[in-house]
């Protein structure tokens, strides 16, 4: 009988790889700075009802922030004058329309009383009255901050990437927040777009910013945002549904036909400095969860959604085909849902070794035999008796999908999570005779992010163990190449304004031989997960 996984694991991958530490914990703010002092020092009083004069000094800070005027709502067409930029050029909310008469509006709110962001980092929060309706509350950078950057990692066409300075995005509604992106993980779909310029019918037709697995800090909030304040560290959910169609109203927003998803053409992704999101898609990280762990919440939420689709309940047995990041996370989530037998399956032995350390109770190296024979061997190796209660395919590979149908028990559940060939030979008779329930799983829906964060905070899933290294933003392309090589699980790319305390000693050199192997394994695959 294969041994059960130990509680005390041997030295984990992350300890070996010299990961940059988490973002410095917040320290209590200095009581000597009052809001009034800040306001006086930093903001000119509003001199007329239809202009905002805002001046500030830039000083050194870990996260240079946009000028306040640049985050004003596009709904407000107003003049402003910033002493630090010319009104014609660098300020993003550059608008030359004539001043508007002030309008009474139900959304005009009172000053929001917000505790200053830690003064040790030099920031303070200020509410800037907006001439049209909303007040926007922002983080104000300390004196002498360098000019904020919104450098972005852009895909022009397959294998042709570049770094481009893009305008800092603006809040689109009073429910929006502006986030300084600090860490972004690389997903198989990002690599796939980089290589092929398309996934299915989504085709990159004009330069597109990559990335969607991110975490960062809120720097500005619209007036209708009650649950987040500037300074909050958040995990970012990168897909925004319409909220009005039948699927959205029925609670299945991941299926919204008008979904706007980061780094899925034609929408830009999060490998950039600043990102705008509706507040309900930004999830505050508890104090014991780092921003780097925050960047892992997105793939973990994918895994949560998959395991929920599989209806895993306490005492069950679960088999997961594919020991990539999603498969590994599914194993960990299944365990936290109470599964007592969790079997990881792959064609690469090294991945299974890691899986055993990480979350699996059993592993099985898939054989080049018929699907039925493979399933028989698998069930025996893992002591599954007549079959597993749930089988999750996180590989997309045709032989794995076929093996899955012979591995699941009578009356069990099969979930298709992996994406490979669009059409395959499927053991439909097995599905019928065994009365198997099959479900697809796509991205994540209501409650998945919240549970994912809870799993990290309560230490039920050790997402840090999947991170092989963190690289600076300027090394983004090397990171992509490294992921494609196939020897790493997860690499994080720091945001363009993020300073890594210790430079993650990740060797971004790529082994040509391993690259060939990875390419062969990925043959016929569409790849990607989001």
């Amino acid at each position: 009988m294969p041994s059960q996984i130990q509680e005390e694991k041997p030295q984990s991958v992350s300890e070996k790889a010299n990961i940059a530490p988490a973002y410095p914990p917040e320290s209590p703010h200095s009581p000597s700075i009052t809001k009034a002092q800040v306001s006086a020092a930093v903001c000119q009083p509003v001199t007329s009802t239809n202009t905002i004069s805002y001046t500030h000094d830039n000083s050194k800070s870990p996260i240079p922030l946009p000028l306040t005027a640049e985050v004003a709502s596009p709904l407000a067409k107003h003049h402003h004058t910033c002493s630090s930029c010319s009104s014609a050029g660098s300020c993003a909310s550059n608008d030359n329309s004539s001043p508007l008469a002030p309008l009474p509006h139900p959304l005009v709110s009172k000053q929001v009383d917000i505790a200053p962001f830690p003064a040790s980092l030099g920031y303070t929060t200020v509410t800037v009255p907006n001439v049209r309706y909303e007040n926007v509350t922002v983080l104000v950078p300390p004196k002498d901050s360098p000019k904020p950057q919104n450098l972005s990692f852009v895909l022009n066409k397959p294998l042709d990437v570049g770094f481009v300075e893009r305008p800092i995005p603006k809040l689109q509604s009073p429910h929006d927040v502006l986030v300084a992106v600090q860490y972004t993980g690389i997903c198989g779909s990002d690599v796939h777009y980089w290589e092929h310029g398309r996934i299915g019918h989504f085709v990159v037709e004009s330069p597109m910013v990559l990335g969607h697995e991110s975490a960062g800090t809120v720097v500005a909030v619209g007036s209708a945002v009650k649950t987040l304040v500037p300074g909050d560290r958040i995990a970012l959910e990168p897909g925004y549904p319409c909220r009005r169609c039948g699927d959205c109203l029925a609670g299945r927003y991941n299926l919204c036909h008008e979904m706007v998803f980061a780094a899925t053409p034609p929408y830009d992704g999060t490998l950039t400095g600043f990102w705008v999101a509706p507040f309900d898609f930004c999830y505050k990280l508890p104090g014991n969860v780092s921003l780097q762990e925050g960047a892992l919440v997105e793939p973990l939420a994918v895994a949560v959604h998959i395991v929920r689709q599989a209806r895993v309940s306490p005492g069950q047995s679960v088999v997961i085909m594919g020991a990539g990041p999603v498969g590994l996370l599914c194993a960990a989530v299944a365990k936290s849902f109470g599964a007592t037998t969790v079997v990881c399956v792959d064609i690469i032995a090294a991945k299974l070794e890691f899986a055993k350390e990480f979350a699996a109770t059993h592993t099985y190296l898939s054989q080049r035999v018929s699907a039925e024979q493979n399933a028989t061997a698998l069930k025996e190796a893992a002591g599954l008796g007549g079959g597993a209660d749930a089988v999750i395919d996180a590989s997309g590979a045709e032989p794995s999908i076929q093996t899955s149908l012979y591995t699941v028990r009578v009356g069990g559940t099969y979930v298709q999570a992996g994406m490979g060939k669009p059409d395959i030979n499927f053991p439909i008779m097995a599905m019928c005779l065994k009365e198997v329930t099959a479900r697809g799983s796509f991205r994540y829906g209501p409650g998945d992010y919240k549970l994912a964060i809870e799993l990290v905070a309560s230490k039920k899933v050790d997402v840090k163990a999947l991170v092989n290294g963190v690289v600076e933003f300027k090394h983004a392309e090397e990171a992509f190449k490294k992921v494609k090589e196939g020897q790493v699980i997860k690499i994080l790319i720091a945001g363009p304004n993020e300073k890594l305390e210790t430079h993650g000693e990740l060797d971004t050199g790529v082994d040509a031989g391993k690259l060939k192997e990875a390419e062969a394994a990925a043959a016929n695959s569409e790849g990607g997960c989001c």
Partner: protein
Amino acid sequence: MNPSFVLRAVNDVVFEDRPKPELKDPYDVLVHVAQTGICGSDATNRSGTITAIGSRVANLEPGDRVALEPGVPCRRCEFCRKGKYHLCLDLIFAATPPHDGTLARYYVNASDFCYRIPDSNDPGGGRDGRTCQRRGGDREDRGFRGAPDGGVAKAGGAGKIIGVDVVGERLELAREEYGVDGTFMPPKPEEGKDSLEHAEAVSRLIKEEFGLGDGADVVLECSGAEACVQMGVYTLKSGGTMVQAGMGKEVVNFPITTVCTRGLVVKGSIRYLAGCYPAAIDLIAKGKVGVRKLITNRFKFEQSEEAFQLVKEGRPDVFKVMIEGVQ
């Protein structure tokens, strides 16, 4: 511009000419209200014609006749996002303070909460969206709200449907119009008899008279009356489900141990969810559930106060009272 029937204080109503409401959101529509029905709380059933649409409205055009779902949720809270928008704490519900209702010429609504009515339907037929969460099986109801529930249960494939009420006219309507398989008028309790004992006795009578064996699969409690809530629990078979739709006293004497020992499921039901309105319109359009007979009284807009007085009287021959919109 916009004659409106306004409640200023208890029993103090007045007609006011208010400004025409404006579209606040590119997904809003402006509706010229055609009919408003009066419900226990105030007015929940309404329909009208679209007169203006916001810039991003794709599903409706001016001139469309629509049924209005009067509760627009926030779309952002946990409940909304998981599809339970009827539980949204920030639900904007017409004629629930501080939001105005539809007893006016015009009403602004979100476009995804307006549903086109097929031309064959008379807009005067009221809509009660709460016709969608029904299952097959025997069931017990009371009151005119329950009567269409019977029709919906029948359309949904229920085997045997029993209507229960103390008002003869309602049982008659249930029989004639909604195709219930049987009706039952519970006898009054004897002087000094314990309410729960009486409820149990009546439920035994019901099970016997209609051959329900161990009991009904489903009970729809649509009256809110304490005695009926009790009867409902006792009439269920083991493992059965009771749906509490009726609103009466906040606190009742409830046979909770029976729920435990017989493995019952008790569910609350409030308003309606995604898909209910379209399903209701479809049932009415296809003639599977007739609502015409529920409308017993019609009033012109100028007679609104009289209409409310009539509902207040609680006469047994008055079911649904409709107030025509401002012409």
